[in-house]
């Protein structure tokens, strides 16, 4: 019985993450972005444009993406603004299915932008300790995985 109760509490905690992440949506006035699938994904890299794209060559791993890319000097001392978006745009059910298969091109570009920035700024892309896990599989862990997986697709970038 005690186990069951603890299990239920843990599951509630797992669901809490999903709710926590979802609670942003509760903000009144949050309309769905009509340009969601076509917007440029932008990131600012703390390096001057000639270091971001020496001789006009795109940096890795951004250069490997099937993406339109543009960039400009950022205002102030902020470096370079880099923008990218997939060449082929998916919409509707096609976009949803691709996302479920983990093949959303926008997600891939988002990740490529982040990694490009980190490589240029620090020379590396930081890996998480999760790679040598200490966690054990649980129900709330699965729910958390789903919430974390989904969250990586959203956000500002």
């Amino acid at each position, binding site marked *: 019985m005690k186990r069951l109760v*603890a299990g239920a*509490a*843990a599951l509630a*905690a*797992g669901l*809490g*993450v999903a*709710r*926590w*992440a979802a*609670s*942003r949506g*509760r903000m009144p006035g949050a309309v769905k972005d009509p340009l969601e699938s076509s917007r440029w994904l932008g990131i*600012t890299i*703390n390096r001057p444009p000639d270091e971001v794209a020496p001789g006009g060559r795109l940096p890795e791993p951004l250069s490997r993406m099937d993406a339109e890319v543009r960039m400009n000097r950022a205002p102030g*001392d*902020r*470096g370079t603004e880099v923008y990218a978006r997939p060449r082929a745009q998916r919409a509707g059910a096609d976009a949803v299915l691709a996302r479920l298969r983990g093949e959303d091109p926008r997600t891939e570009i988002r990740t490529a932008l*982040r990694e490009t*920035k*980190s490589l240029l*700024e*620090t*020379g*590396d*892309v*930081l*890996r*998480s*300790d*999760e*790679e*040598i*896990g*200490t*966690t*054990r599989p*649980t129900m*709330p*862990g699965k729910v*958390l995985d789903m*919430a*974390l997986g*989904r*969250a*990586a*697709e*959203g*956000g*500002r*970038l």
Partner: protein
Amino acid sequence: MKALCWQGVNELSVEQVPDPAILNAQDAIVKVTASTTCGSDLHLLGGYIPAMRAGDVIGHEFIGEIVDVGPEVSRHRPGDRVVVCSIIGCGRCWSCRHDQWSLCENSNPSPGITDLMWGGTTAGIFGYSHAMGGFRGSHAEYIRVPFVDYNAFTVPEGVSDLDVLFASDAAPTGWMGAELGGVKPGDVVAVWGCGGVGQMAARAAMLLGADRVIAIDRYPERLAMTARHVGCEVIDYTSTDVTAELRERTGGRGPDVCVEAVGMEADSTGIQRVYDGIKQQLRLEQDRPIAVREAIRACRTGGSVFVLGVFAGFVDKFPLGALMNKGLTLRGAQQHGQRFIPKLLDRIAKGDLKPSYLATHVMTLDEGPKGYEMFKHKKDGCVRAVFRPWA
């Protein structure tokens, strides 16, 4: 190796886990010699920051010895005795370069959750859930420290472990509250919470030249400790009206700077505690902002409020009218430790700051669950339980 792991809400256990490894060329492995409890862990333990998984190693305030370094580490080598900042910075993004280390743009490998929740990416933190990068915590025999050149600081000769330990988190957090709260000579400063963080904030306010510092809590032993070691005035919020008391002590003005060092599990004697408690349990509100509300109410017109206490999501009954009409400045942050730790180490070496008194209970790592039990319920006067994995 041995480590203290989160197993579920209010459930901890000591486990054997795989040793950490160097995963990036700028990493180091640190043999942990002392690691302490922090109020932030209580929010994880209680399930208020929900991105935790069974088996996660907790703890983020620690010192140790470097035992291994990656090929691109240049400022440290094995054998260095170091204090490590609880927040991970890359040192080279725009935020790190502008000394806003807890906003590092490259140290959280899974920025999705914080980005989605808050509309911005924040730094990775040791032992602080999968939302903050999924880094292992320091209540363990060893820990991997990323970007070690920027995040570990060599301990000056002759400084004791327990004095330097709090330079990892509590002391720089308190210092940040006072300094970025704008404390200057002649100010009256009020600090909510007399835990490790609040006491360090009060001490920092004094060192920054505040004329009077007043700290607020309910535990007699914490109030007595603050009066004795920080040397400031105190108020027991269970026996008086804090706002009225502050007015009376400040010529009717209220404090110039208010530092909140309580966080999302704030307590009170009144109806507020019941109201926020119920809403929090029903997840209609995530955090209980009782001390923040009081600080905004008590602050002098035109004054400043700094939120050091950790909040995760939404709060209710936020006094925006008072904030706006009184012309207050409200700020908050996870600590920008790397900005303050070198200065703090100097002060600790000189004896201006002696935080070791916060370590009320020094224990083995095996006693971790008991240490948290005492710390959570403030039993036996526990202010900080310190674990010595190799003792």
